[in-house]
């Protein structure tokens, strides 16, 4: 099945919504969930939230693409037309697409990439760690003829969805979701504030320290000038709070 194929017609749930036909559009990270049943939760745990992606955000991050032809035995040099992560970039060769990491392992491309900075070419030993910065020059080496480097440009819309997912990830990384003291997240109470440089998101979560339920908070800050630059911070009911820490710019959903 190919992108753009006609696949279905929008409906009303066999009459379940007789005056409000609509598309329920859902994106899952795995295929172990119940089918034919809306994903409604309350309370909402970290574990359940992590089972899903925001479809609009996911598509927006991968909606536009730049393609560069690579040549066997040559360095292809190019300026990045927009800011973009290497994590969603891929190499296409003989109709097959692989991540930069896999393409490097398969020797479709060299693992090193050269970046023009500080008025000279500097090498990076791992192409998958590179962030493509707008107007900066890069050099990628191809080991096969006919391969293409494809870079997906994030649209930087749906920033609240990204903040929510970042904050859920922050909690999952810094607080053990299986800890019985942790109970639930409350995205409906997410607030935003901003200053000249950042938009700050703040989501409460609930935990029980043995003396009843208490609230903690998790934060995400999105840089206005380049929304892929984000920071995270959170309370930790079972340990030291997490101070502001930069989120890996290459990590999308």
């Amino acid at each position, binding site marked *: 099945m190919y992108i753009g194929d006609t696949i279905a017609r929008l409906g009303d749930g066999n009459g*379940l919504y007789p005056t409000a036909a609509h598309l329920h559009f859902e994106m899952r990270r795995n295929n172990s969930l119940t089918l034919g049943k809306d994903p409604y939760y309350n309370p909402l745990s970290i574990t359940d939230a992590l089972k899903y992606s925001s479809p609009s955000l996911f598509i927006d991050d991968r909606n536009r693409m730049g393609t560069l032809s690579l040549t066997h035995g040559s360095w292809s040099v190019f300026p990045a037309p927009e800011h973009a992560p290497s994590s969603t970039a891929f190499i296409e060769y003989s109709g097959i697409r692989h991540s930069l990491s896999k393409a490097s392992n398969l020797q479709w491309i060299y693992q090193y990439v050269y970046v023009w900075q500080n008025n000279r070419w500097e090498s990076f030993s791992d192409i998958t760690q590179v962030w493509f910065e707008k107007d900066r020059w890069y050099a990628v080496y191809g080991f096969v003829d006919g391969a293409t480097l494809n870079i997906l440009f994030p649209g930087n819309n749906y920033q609240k969805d990204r903040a929510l997912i970042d904050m859920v990830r922050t909690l999952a990384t810094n607080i053990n979701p299986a800890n019985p003291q942790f109970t639930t997240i409350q995205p409906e109470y997410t607030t935003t504030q901003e200053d000249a440089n950042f938009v700050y998101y703040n989501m409460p979560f609930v935990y029980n320290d043995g003396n009843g339920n208490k609230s903690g908070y998790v934060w995400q800050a999105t840089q206005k000038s380049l929304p892929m630059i984000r920071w995270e911070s959170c309370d930790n009911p079972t340990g030291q709070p997490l101070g502001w820490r930069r989120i890996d710019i290459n990590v999308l959903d």
Partner: protein
Amino acid sequence: MKVTSTFLLGLLGVFVFSGVVYAGTAGVFRLPYDTNQHWSADCDRRGLIGYKLIADQVFMHLNTDLKDRYGNPLPPKYHLAEDWNGQCGNSTDFGGVLYAVADGIVEKADMGGSPTSQDNGGWLLIRHPLPDGNARYILYEHIASVETNPRTSRTVQNRRPCVYR
């Protein structure tokens, strides 16, 4: 490695936006509908031309207006998906064409009314393998029909049959 001017001039690549895609692993993604599609004459008369869907429920939305099939209120719950409705409202978008958001594989479909289906109408699940080895599963739900033939072949393209696993 030393980079020379010859190296730079001789091996310069050019970025172009590609329109070529291949089946199997997903590359670029797009919305599941055509923003230029006309789907309702009534909508056109009201000056709302085009098949625009607007978000009725956004991701992680706490739905406080849940009701059962008989209109009885239900406790609020978080919706881990999106609901998109036609901008002309009501069911004016009924029958609108939905497209695959990326290359992928049809996993399952159910048009409802069978013992295995819930009472949410038809649904279609498509797996989109990603170049990094992960995958995402898109579920289109409450659909009126599937535009493919589930019985005869492995893949589906526009007007091609497909297979369900």
